[in-house]
């Protein structure tokens, strides 16, 4: 796959956010966010609903626009007048809470579309790649079905495979298990753990603390648009610093 456009420089620092703020009208969703992500790093972002964690991750591929500060992806600044947004987005995989598979296309077509349409990969190569990725998320036998015929967990794994087919430099997960039935959470997390262990750079917004503990290099806790606390998983869970974090952890871990 040497013909793939490598728009993001193989720099050590994949993502850098410097003093990023964002407002929805008068409501401040992000307040002076500073965060850097290195190649191969796994970041878990957690926090109460409305704390701005989804907004943060959506700013990274500019599904949302920030109004202040600087976001650099592989050295390219994300701003309003950038010309190469589509090239940059091709290198950033995103997995959504509600999967957002293309319902009119089969699982295989969902996975082939990106490489074939915008990466310049031939149909047969795209198909081989799609099958390999479906193999990786353990549902190659569903390739010819339509998304609506799959369970939620299977759909989310297809969504992950679809992103992987683009061979992204970084993967963003926006609450990937929040819309799933409890018994399907495990299969998606398993896929994500496998991905993390393969060395993929990942930023995950999730409340799955077991996942954070297992694969996270850094846990970031947000509240009211600010990063309240950041630490390695062990210290974050065993020895939280701020009262807000302690309260949050006691609430989600007490059940």
């Amino acid at each position: 796959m040497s013909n793939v456009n490598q728009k993001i420089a193989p720099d050590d620092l994949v993502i850098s956010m410097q003093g990023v703020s964002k407002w929805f009208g008068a409501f401040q969703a992000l307040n002076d966010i500073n965060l850097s992500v290195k190649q191969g790093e796994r970041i878990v972002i957690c926090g109460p609903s409305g704390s701005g964690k989804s907004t943060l991750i959506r700013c990274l591929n500019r599904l949302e626009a920030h109004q202040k500060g600087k976001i650099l992806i592989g050295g390219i600044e994300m701003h309003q007048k950038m010309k190469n947004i589509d090239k940059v987005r091709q290198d950033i995989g995103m997995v959504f809470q509600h999967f957002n598979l293309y319902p009119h296309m089969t699982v295989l077509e969902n996975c082939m579309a990106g490489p074939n349409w915008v990466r310049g990969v031939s149909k047969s190569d795209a198909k081989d790649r799609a099958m390999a990725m479906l193999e990786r998320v353990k549902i190659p036998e569903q390739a010819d079905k339509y998304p609506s015929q799959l369970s939620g967990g299977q759909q989310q794994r297809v969504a992950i495979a679809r992103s992987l087919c683009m061979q992204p430099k970084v993967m963003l997960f926006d609450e990937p298990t929040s819309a799933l039935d409890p018994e399907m959470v495990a299969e998606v997390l398993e896929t994500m753990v496998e991905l993390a262990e393969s060395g993929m750079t990942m930023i995950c917004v999730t409340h799955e603390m077991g996942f954070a503990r297992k694969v996270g290099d850094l846990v970031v806790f947000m509240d009211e648009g600010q990063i309240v606390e950041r630490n390695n998983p062990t210290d974050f869970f065993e020895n939280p610093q701020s009262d807000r974090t302690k309260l949050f952890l006691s609430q989600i871990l007490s059940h």
Partner: protein
Amino acid sequence: MYADNVIGDKLIHKPKFILGLLAVAFLAFFTFNLAGTMFGEFLRPVIGEPKESGLYGRSAVALVLAVLFVGNLFLISFANIKVQVAIVWIELLLLFLAFFYSFNLKFSFIQSKIGFMITQGLFTTLYISAVSIAIASLIAIVGAVAKLSNNGFAYGIASFYTSLFRGLPLLMQVFLIYMGLPQIGYVIDAVPAGIIALSLCYGAYMTEIFRAGIQSVPRGQWEASRSQGFKFGLTMRRIILPQAIPLIIPPTGNQFIAMLKDSSLVSVIGVWELMFLARTLGQKEFRQMEMLITAAFIYWGMTMVLEVIQSRIEKHYRKKGQQ
């Protein structure tokens, strides 16, 4: 509609309801004095000369009709629903035919003209409508995208266009285009003028249909597509429109059926389509009614065929959507 699983007694089997319905039917038939019509003619043995039968004749006709009507309802109520529908259709059709028959039509005249009405009139009507709906669909896609865009210029043009062409009667648009364009030095034939008028008018209505269809595709589809690096055009063509089209097709089918009949308005500028022939073919021999009725049946038949086709297409997309 929601049909409950508990079935009560049929209303029509209750004596009180039957009597009430009889009274209402009697009053209705009595109000429109029907003694002077063919119904009165049928009852001549009972009421004598219909025109001189007075109140007696009027009530007798009304009573007979009311009994026939209610008795018919009562009998039909014992059949299953499919048979009921079939009987009602046949009865109404027979009444309709009897209505036409009473015009004292000359069928040989119809026979001599119907070939031309179909090869010239029906063909032109279908051809104008098909071309117009195709152009209108293109206009509608562009208009819908413009109306949904953030571009003030595009939105301005699109909203002015839909406002104007939805705001003027189609007949006026036909005149304005056919007689207005030559004023600025552009002489246009009747057929293209008709097609332009129909396309622009229906394009304006369909812009709103397409806009609603595109808007009903969830936002997440846009986000997934854009986050994969698909450009706007690619997203629209391969992701959004394929999902919007199954929603757009049923109302577009309705528009096409409506257009088929509104295409009769271009007869005013002399296009030889079905309506024009219906008005002109019978003129010389004072046989207008024959031609109008023939055209009416051709329009109706065409519409029924299209409705069947439309429901097939809808079914096809519904199946696809369930995959």
